[in-house]
């Protein structure tokens, strides 16, 4: 079967562009055609930017025609989660409170991609302020999973995952605070990479939980994830938590064999609540790793069971502090009408501007940080965070890579868990520990369940060892050779 331009990876498109077999304008047209064909149903994009994109593609073609050096990012259509600021392009965070906010600056992650020649096709829908696991918490309506439009794409970066799965963009950026890149990647059948905390600058990432927030990538291949990370990684003086350490060449060793790689299967991640099809598919993928020569053993993360509890104290606590900035004064919504004073205006603005999940987390965090409860909740949660980090340190003495399912389930139906916050939070049970510890992790498609929905396997590596993570993920991806394509695209 000949694959159309819209089905190619970034690396394939970049090679065609370099060979003069296509142009940035043609590549963009393929993305645009997909957007026109499916986004009315998928609803991945909150703010498409077709005009900006075509101007940019024209500029690029003109620039490349001079024989100028071509970056691997040049001409690649990219979508950005709408929590990343874009100068002059509306950035809503999926919230009424920022519905008309037009940032006066670019996020560093976008500055880097854009500087390397990426073409912005639009800003993607997401759970409000990145709080959610299904994209149902967006103030602008849900995103529909390209594999089954009645199901969620996962969240919170659901629009970014769906856009890449459907070929509306070749690459996308998301953010991962408790699994918000990896879980939607798993549910949409694409590759989702959450690098080490601090590897990519958070400048211009509108904050949810600052000690956990990590920018991550959506691609249709592991090699492309490495290519994106190559451009994104590195120190940024504008983010004091960004790491000032050298950036290795992520593509250099990605094709190397994994014989002798020590792979630990996280035993706790195959228990209650994990769908049998998910467990079976992930176990089969582990067998492929063993067949490729990996040295597979059983790993334990004994405190992972407490990670979810710790997360739902730490993340809301940081959220309640970060979201205090939405006060109706400097930007964003101000509640209409006369206000007796500024304090009353703030109460009304925040009451009207935030949706139910954001209010829930602000309340939870405010409570957990309040006098008399701080030590019992936030203080104890920070200790559990230490225990989770120690678990990883112990596991990584014995193993190079840890594996588990990314999510306990495949995509569920829109509305199925909407009224049960605890059930929703359990979606992130396998992804949260990596955020608490700051370690890099990736979700790679490993199969389909019996109704044809994608399943993802999560690989996790020690701090800053993205190179090994990508190598292992690439070896598995190549061996499985899935080439997933949602049925929605059959006639496209």
């Amino acid at each position, binding site marked *: 079967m000949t694959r159309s331009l819209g089905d190619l990876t970034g690396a394939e498109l970049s090679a065609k562009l370099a060979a003069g077999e296509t142009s940035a304008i043609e590549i963009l047209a393929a993305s645009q055609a997909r957007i026109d064909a499916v986004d009315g149903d998928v609803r991945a994009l909150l703010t498409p930017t077709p005009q900006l994109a075509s101007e940019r593609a024209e500029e690029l073609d003109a620039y490349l025609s001079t024989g100028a050096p071509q970056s691997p990012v040049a001409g690649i259509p990219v979508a950005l989660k709408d929590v990343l600021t874009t100068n002059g392009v509306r950035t809503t965070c999926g919230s009424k409170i920022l519905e008309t906010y037009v940032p006066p600056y670019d996020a560093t992650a976008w500055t880097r991609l854009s500087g390397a020649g990426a073409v912005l096709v639009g800003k993607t829908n997401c759970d409000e302020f990145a709080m959610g696991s299904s994209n149902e918490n967006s103030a602008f309506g849900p995103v529909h999973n390209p594999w089954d439009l009645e199901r969620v794409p996962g969240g919170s970066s659901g629009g970014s995952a769906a856009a890449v799965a459907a070929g509306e963009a070749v690459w996308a950026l998301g953010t991962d605070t408790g699994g918000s890149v990896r879980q939607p990647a798993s549910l949409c059948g694409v590759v989702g990479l959450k690098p080490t905390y601090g590897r990519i600058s958070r400048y211009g990432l509108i904050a949810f939980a600052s000690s956990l927030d990590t920018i991550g990538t959506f691609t249709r291949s592991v090699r492309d994830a490495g290519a994106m990370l190559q451009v994104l990684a590195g120190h940024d003086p504008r983010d004091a938590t960004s790491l000032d350490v050298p950036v290795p060449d992520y593509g250099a060793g990605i094709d190397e064999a994994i014989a002798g790689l020590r792979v630990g299967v996280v035993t706790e991640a195959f228990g209650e609540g994990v769908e049998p099809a998910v467990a079976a598919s992930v176990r089969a993928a582990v067998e492929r790793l063993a067949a490729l020569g990996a040295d597979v053993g059983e790993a334990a993360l004994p405190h992972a069971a407490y990670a979810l*509890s710790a997360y739902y104290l730490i993340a809301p606590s940081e959220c309640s502090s970060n979201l205090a900035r939405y006060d109706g*004064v400097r930007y964003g919504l101000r509640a209409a009408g006369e206000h007796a004073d500024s304090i009353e205006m703030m109460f009304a603005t925040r009451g009207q501007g935030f949706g139910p999940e954001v209010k829930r987390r602000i309340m939870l965090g405010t409570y957990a940080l309040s006098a008399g409860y701080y030590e019992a909740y936030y203080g104890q949660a920070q200790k559990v965070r230490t225990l989770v980090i120690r678990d990883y340190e112990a596991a990584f003495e014995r193993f190079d890579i840890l594996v588990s399912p990314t999510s306990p389930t495949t995509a569920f139906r829109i509305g199925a868990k909407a009224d049960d916050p605890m059930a929703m939070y359990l979606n992130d049970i396998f992804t949260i520990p990596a955020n608490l510890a700051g370690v890099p992790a990736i979700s790679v498609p490993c199969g389909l369940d019996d109704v044809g929905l994608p399943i993802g396997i999560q690989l996790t590596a020690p701090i800053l060892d993205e190179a090994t993570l990508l190598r292992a993920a690439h070896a598995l991806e190549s061996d499985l050779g899935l080439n997933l394509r949602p049925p929605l695209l059959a006639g496209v």
Partner: protein
Amino acid sequence: MPVEIDIEHVAKLARLQLSEEEREQLAAQLGQILEHAARVGEVAADDVPPTASPIPRANVFREDVIEPSLPVDEALRNSPERDGDRFGVPRIAETGA
């Protein structure tokens, strides 16, 4: 057991206007979530130090160099109410007397 919370007090701390229905829902939901979250106390022993950030950094300094800042018009462009070169707000202090 679900945790009981003084929702009105917490909402006041958070500067969050809530409807009666929201208050009732939040009381039930937060009680349930906190019951689960309280499990952190089962394993967090006294001798375990807290972690605030996964990769601790302290005293991140930069050179004190003056760079161009955002022009006033840009900074005020998103404000709900502009008052000259300032943000406009409703009354913030008692007046008169």
